[in-house]
């Protein structure tokens, strides 16, 4: 991978973030709530509303408001939350750190399980283990997080009383209790991803094992492990990198529901609360933060892709 490719890709990430900021700002602009009414309540007089709109610059053209908002965002000023009266940025960063912990633990847990599972199923194609894997993974991808979460709470937290059903304890405060509270959410988030990613690895690997270069490698007399790990897996992992990168977006979406159900004060929960209370600046900041996290992950995935497949940079 050349430096030029990395730089070009970095530039594209900046473009991505710019487009995202326009979408996020645009969408929240069309929200049916009037920011001034939200701030002052339904009983405010028209004069009060007009004065506030004037002070907040709500009468300016949309692009001027956008430029002002973006300028603030770039200098770390996301504004003041309508709901709490506190600055938005510290709240968001606090929530993000909790969400990232949940997301990273889930992705790590998922990879440790999904990759060997996919390989094992593909190399035993059609055998009993592969069929059992197929059935379990079908059920796995077919359950939305809220169903998985509810069933897990029903089973582990209520029936066996093993783990706390909801709530959050910071790891720094009480490490063991914090970890216990994270187990069920992490299992929920990773479960569907395990099914999705291992299924993808299996199907790509099955395809690769039927290709001409694998046949050639076998005819050359290479040992089967070399054929699978050296030739087929390398090609099978290419699409998988993209899928994992896409799944990060899915995780970031999924934690919205999981945080809501398990009552974890992360960024997803913050966004839902903000949407319910029409807290415009908080919605914007939350959505932008999630999207930025995803864009950075995607950028890293593309770099990894270029390292694995040398053809990429010439296209």
């Amino acid at each position, binding site marked *: 991978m050349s430096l030029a490719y990395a730089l070009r890709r970095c530039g594209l990430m900046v473009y991505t973030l*710019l*487009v*995202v900021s326009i979408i996020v700002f645009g969408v929240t602009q069309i929200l*049916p709530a009037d920011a001034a009414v939200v701030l002052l309540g339904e009983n405010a007089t028209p004069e009060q509303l007009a004065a506030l709109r004037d002070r907040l610059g709500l009468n300016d053209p949309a692009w001027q408001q956008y430029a002002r908002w973006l300028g603030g965002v770039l200098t770390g000023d996301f504004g003041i939350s309508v709901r709490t009266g506190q600055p938005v940025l510290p709240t968001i960063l606090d929530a993000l750190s909790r969400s990232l912990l949940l997301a990273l633990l889930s992705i790590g847990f998922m990879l440790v399980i999904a990759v060997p599972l996919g390989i094992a199923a593909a190399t035993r194609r059609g055998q009993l283990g592969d069929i059992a894997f197929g059935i379990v993974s079908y059920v796995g991808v077919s359950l939305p997080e809220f169903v998985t979460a509810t069933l897990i709470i029903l089973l582990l937290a209520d029936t066996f009383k093993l783990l706390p059903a909801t709530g959050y304890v910071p790891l720094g405060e009480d490490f063991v209790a914090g970890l216990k509270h994270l187990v069920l959410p992490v299992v929920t988030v990773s479960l569907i991803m395990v099914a999705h990613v291992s299924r993808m690895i299996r199907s790509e690997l099955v395809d690769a094992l039927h290709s001409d270069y694998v046949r050639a490698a076998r005819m050359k007399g290479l040992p089967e492990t070399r054929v699978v790990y050296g030739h087929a897996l390398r090609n099978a992992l290419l699409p998988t990198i993209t899928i994992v990168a896409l799944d990060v977006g899915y995780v970031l979406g999924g934690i*919205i529901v999981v945080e809501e159900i398990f009552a974890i004060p992360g960024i997803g929960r913050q966004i839902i609360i903000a949407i319910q209370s029409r807290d415009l600046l908080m919605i914007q900041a939350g959505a932008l933060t999630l999207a930025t996290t995803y864009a950075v992950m995607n950028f890293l995935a593309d770099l990894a892709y270029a390292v694995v497949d040398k053809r990429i940079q010439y296209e």
Partner: protein
Amino acid sequence: MSEVLARLVRSPQGAIGLGIVSLVGIAVVAGPWLAPHDPNAISILARYKPPGGQYLLGTDQLGRDLLSRLLHGAQSTVIMAAIATLCGTVMGALIGTTSAYVGGRTDDAVMRTIDAVMAIPSLLMSLLVVSMLGRSQANAVLAIAIAFTPGMARITRSVALAVRKQDYVSAAIARGEGTAYIVMGEMVPNVVAPIIVEMTIRVAFSVMLFATLSFLGLGAQPPTPEWGLMVSEARKFMHLSTWMILWPCCAIALVAIGFNLLGDGLRDALNPRT
């Protein structure tokens, strides 16, 4: 076409998938006639009934028949999800194929913008759109379609890009055919197969997404017997009756499994190489 169908039915996953999807289809079309009770009839004396007797699957916190609610809910859940997927697929396929055909800077610009839109997770995108347009079933469908469009465009493009390099496309260009003909006449038919596979699997996602929106209170509104909404309502009474929560969960899972199986069966049937 009939050859594909024959191959589909011959594989176990294709046959089971087709079976489940057909059953779901029957529930969607004939659900209201098959339902033994009125889905919204409240019966205070028959609350939290376990399965059996007059109520085949039991009753909920208001004594409403769960089987009847599930059968009626099939329409609100499955049809909405299918419509959303179809809209998202058509929009995405058009964008993806055209972009791959045009190529060059335009393709680059379109794809970067698509990447940017995809940096917003589909659930968040749907949440934003629904909260912008107001909570309702129709808005949830639109939100899911919008959320699916960039993903479908990206997948279509990657398939179309491979097709674009084929000799028959070069031949059409050499013959001097117009862009519209080459995209619609030469490229779309050849990218359709993988797209149908992806679309079938996406119906499963769409059912899940739609149920999730309803679960969060942003999709179907009570007393609609939508499955996600049923789970959300049942959560409060989890300790009184497990059945209320279990059945709609199973229904969502069954539909999603059915479409996933059908999609995979179709993939194998359309691509006999593997």
